């Protein structure tokens, strides 16, 4: 393209001898945010949550985070070297992918597994499509789905054994006087898994439905969910630290409200309607059951992480604001459906992946309204 621009001017005679004026096409000023800048900002915004998970889970978590990030960067560089492409591994996008992948695995997952996952994310989900900007699926989530399908046991069981001495789980008070075994079962599983298997806990440990619900929806539990003292994937424990990072991204205008807010609202509304129609057994005995349940769903699992950091991945989300809203509603509905009826306790990552597949169609049919015309679509 540069030649193109230059040829337009070659005929001009250069009268002022020593001066070499630089030509460029308008506009001559550019926004200061470059791709690299944006990507490293996202990395920084993830650091509070990542650091907190190291505090919670200790060295193991740090190892996972670092190994995953580094192997993603290495995979990117290695592929680009092998294919003789320009090396862009330092632009931070691979680092985000690696970091997010690690934040999406349980704290005690084996290190070799996340390394394979990172390589899968970068090579199969991203580089085979042409690298940054061309991938259809969110690389980190594609890799998570790959790990889930490949080593489901590591992905669904390696939750607990916290770093001794941290505040985890101690916060949650056994206010409902559950039998200690049942209480242990509740506090040592992820909250969503616990909700899903509540009937079984009730059957297995002889706890009452009310007591289990009371524990799950207690103030201390909700507070722990917010601050992050209950189990979960590395990055999904603390809503607070994720929100700090997300605020940073908002301030930097790297993400807009459309996707995260719509996503979370959709889940809230869906869950609100569902539990209003079919309250859980034991719900009557809990005051403010509905708002508590909705809050529980918002704070638990990867919803905050997914809504603010993964659904917002610009490459794999629509370009128009209306498209983004449709996409986010789709994510919310699918995530809720999987949470309520699916085989997994958590549906955020699959919901985003599935909506990624629809993004090309959304982008094709949802187009901005052209100024001076009545139609919205420019195609067909």
């Amino acid at each position, binding site marked *: 393209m540069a030649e193109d621009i230059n040829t337009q001017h070659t005929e001009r005679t250069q009268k002022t001898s020593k001066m070499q004026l630089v030509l460029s096409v308008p506009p001559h000023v550019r926004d200061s945010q470059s791709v690299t800048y944006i990507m490293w900002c996202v990395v920084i915004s993830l650091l509070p949550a990542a650091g907190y998970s190291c505090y919670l889970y200790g060295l193991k978590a740090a190892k996972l985070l670092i190994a995953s990030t580094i192997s993603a960067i290495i995979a990117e560089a290695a592929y680009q070297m092998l294919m003789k492409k320009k090396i862009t591994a330092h632009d931070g996008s691979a680092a985000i992918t690696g970091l997010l992948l690690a934040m999406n695995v349980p704290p005690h997952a084996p290190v070799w597994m996340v390394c394979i996952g990172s390589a899968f994310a970068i090579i199969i989900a991203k580089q085979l499509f042409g690298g940054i900007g061309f991938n259809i699926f969110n690389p980190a989530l594609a890799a998570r789905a790959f790990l889930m399908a490949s080593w*489901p*046991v590591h992905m*669904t*069981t390696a939750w607990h054994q916290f770093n001794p001495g941290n505040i985890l789980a101690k916060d949650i008070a056994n206010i409902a006087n559950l039998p200690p075994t049942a209480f242990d079962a509740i506090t040592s599983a992820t909250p969503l898994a616990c909700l899903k298997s509540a009937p*079984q806990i009730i*059957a*297995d440990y002889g706890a009452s439905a009310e007591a289990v619900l009371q524990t799950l929806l207690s103030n201390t539990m909700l507070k722990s969910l917010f601050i992050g003292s209950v189990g979960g994937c590395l990055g999904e424990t603390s809503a607070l630290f994720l929100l700090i990072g997300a605020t940073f991204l908002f301030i930097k205008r790297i993400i807009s409200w459309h996707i995260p807010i719509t996503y979370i609202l959709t889940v809230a509304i869906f869950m609100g309607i569902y539990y209003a129609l079919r309250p859980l057994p034991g719900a009557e005995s809990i005051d403010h059951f509905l708002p508590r349940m909705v809050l529980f769903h918002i704070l638990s699992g990867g919803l905050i992480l997914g809504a603010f950091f993964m659904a917002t991945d610009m490459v794999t989300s629509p370009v128009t604001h209306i498209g983004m809203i449709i996409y986010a509603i789709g994510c919310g509905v699918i995530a809720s459906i999987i949470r309520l009826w699916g*085989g997994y306790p958590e549906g955020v990552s699959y919901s985003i992946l599935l909506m990624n597949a629809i993004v090309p169609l959304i982008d094709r049919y949802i187009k901005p309204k052209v100024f001076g015309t009545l139609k919205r679509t420019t195609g067909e």
Partner: protein
Amino acid sequence: MFKTLIKPTLILGTIGLISSLTLSYINKLTKPEIEKRLQKKKDEAYAAVLPQQLGYIIVEKDKRVLIDGQEFVYTRAEKKDGERNINAYAFEIAKRGYSGLIRSIVAVDENMKILGLSIIQQTETPGLGARVKEMISKETFFSHFFGNAAETAEQNAQSWFEQQFIGLDCTKQIGILKKGEFSTASEEYKKELLEKNSVSAITGATITTKAVIDSIAEGIEKLKKAIDQEKHSQNAIHKEGKTP
């Protein structure tokens, strides 16, 4: 007319006829074999859940009854214990597991204690749910083809998962323990399971495990109803017999 319509029809008809004839001939040839195998398979399944050493003899095979509007198939076996006839029942039951139906044959004695369980059909994830049929074997590809045959372990007809159900009491809820693989060799483990009336789940496949347990419970319910029905109808026959 002849060229465009009749001739093609004739040819097509002839070919259809020839192929049907051939096929029916082959069908005739293979049919007994297929039926034999199906039967054998079923017998094997029954034999697996009602092993001979227990001494039961099948008396009523594949009885079909309607329970709650659905067909229920069960088999009754008997053994003599002095004066008394001891009954045992085997039934086929299916329930949705992680991905698709899991069909099993279960045999219980009069007290609803499990005599044997055999999973005859499942489409669970290989390496996870599909491990319900996993045999314990240390054999590897290399040892099998290149190593010495001595390592080859003896093959059991039942998987470790199926075996751990033997002896559990179906009148009570069967529990799930997550303690890793149940080893047929470990007496202690077996004792613990019996004590807690539980089975050990396959790691990462609780859904499959639960589906099997639930299907047993469902089957037992149906079986009880079927036995009741049987008694009723026998009573009715008795009454009818008496009235004239």
